């Protein structure tokens, strides 16, 4: 029994902090995060919107850091800067200064992910840093350093998503949501107005939607962490967030979750899949290249 607990503990520690894998997932996530950061905040970051020295400095830093992070130049530094800027936007300008739209859940999730990206080896793939390394290696007549790194921060992104799902489910375990009434409220708020349709289907349909959401979110929280679960839950998860996007007003939330799903997959599997996509042989061909 003790031995089994020990084995389990070792496996957990290995998964959390001792995993050395491909950096392509981190590279992909880096690019997607910058696009999402721009989609959410760039429209609020134009010089004429805050003509103060702080505003000028902040916006200059924002565009410099995000541009560098997107192309992957000085990636460690630029991703750290983007993480700090995003956290500043949410926790200082949002919560402390009081710009309410920047305190919403979708902005917090995005800021947390951007901050975690700063701890990833996200410049080792799909970046100018990588390109420069390849050129240096060619000149020196050696093979470039492998696209590998410790992915503990990528694990934290996966855990962040699961934590979000768990607490979203906890929030829904109240009388209002479980009875389907909250779904009726959303229907009223977004679609019908106060003259709700008089249909016998309405209450059962809202009840079914409510329970589907609860069960699916609970399953995603746990199931997406296992490879067998991902096989069954990826499409329902993508569909759920797609539905949120087209049915409600969730801003960048759905796209952020879609992007962060990359973190649930084992980076070596993603690497192999990309290789196969490019016709570069079967699994594991590039692991030690």
């Amino acid at each position, binding site marked *: 029994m003790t031995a089994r607990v020990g084995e389990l503990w070792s496996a957990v*520690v*290995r998964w*959390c*902090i*001792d995993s*050395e894998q491909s950096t392509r997932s981190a590279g992909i996530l880096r690019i997607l995060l910058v696009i999402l950061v721009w989609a959410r905040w760039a429209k609020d970051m134009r010089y004429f919107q805050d003509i103060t020295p702080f505003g000028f400095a902040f916006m200059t830093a924002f565009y410099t850091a995000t541009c560098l992070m997107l192309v992957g130049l000085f990636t460690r530094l630029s991703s750290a800067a983007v993480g700090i800027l995003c956290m500043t936007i949410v*926790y200082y300008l949002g*919560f*402390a200064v009081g710009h309410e739209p920047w*305190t919403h*859940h979708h902005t*917090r999730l995005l800021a*947390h992910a951007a901050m*975690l990206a700063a*701890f990833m080896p996200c410049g080792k793939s799909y970046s100018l840093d990588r390109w420069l390394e390849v050129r240096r290696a060619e000149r020196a007549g050696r093979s470039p350093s492998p696209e*590998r790194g*410790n992915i*503990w921060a990528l*694990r*934290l992104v996966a*855990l*962040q998503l699961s*934590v*979000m799902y*768990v*607490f*979203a489910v*906890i*929030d829904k375990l*109240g*009388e*209002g949501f479980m*009875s389907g*009434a*909250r779904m*009726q*409220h*959303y229907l*009223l*708020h*977004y*679609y*019908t*107005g*106060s*003259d*709700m349709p*008089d249909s016998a289907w309405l209450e059962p349909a809202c009840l079914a939607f409510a329970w589907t959401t609860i069960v699916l979110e609970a399953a995603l929280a746990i199931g997406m962490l296992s490879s067998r679960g991902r096989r069954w839950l990826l499409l329902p998860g993508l569909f759920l967030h797609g539905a949120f996007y087209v049915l*409600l*007003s*969730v801003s960048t*939330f759905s796209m952020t979750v879609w992007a962060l799903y990359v973190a649930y997959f084992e980076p070596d599997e993603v690497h192999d899949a990309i290789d196969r996509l490019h016709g570069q042989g079967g699994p594991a061909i590039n692991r030690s290249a």
Partner: protein
Amino acid sequence: MVEADAADSSQGRDPRLVRTLRASAFLVLLAAMLAGPICQQVLEMRVGYLRGWTMFSGRGLGDMDVNFYQVLDGERRALAWGAMLRDDDRKAKRRREVRHGRDPLSRVILSNRDIGRVARDLCKKLPPGAELHADTRTARKRGWSRVRVFDVDLCSTKGRKALREKPTRRKGARRR
């Protein structure tokens, strides 16, 4: 891990120190990640910037579901009032008196004052001698509030006065 150690060693770093720092950072960030939702949702404490994941928990709260009835010669008939006013709203330049939903032609009622405004528009459309009654319920976190019934003619002075009165709830009142 062996690979990680080798990489750290080759870069002149103490693998054990690096691993300890990494583990510490992992735990600190994980704790920070959990602190907000545990404080807000489990311990029900409101601590500064520590927030939970309660997406959409406030959306739509306070909105009212309202049924209007036409009462004529003792016969009570539910009105599809949204559709009745929709054409007017579409034509009218002014339609900002009552807050509209995401769909700009759906009216979202938030208060008895809003009910009065909608009633005023509906009264113009009723046949002579007809009365306008209503029942309402409000979206709350725990579901719908109890139904409030207005069994007086909302087109009359008495009805308008009833809208200004504090709620008197009828237990077990039924909707249409």
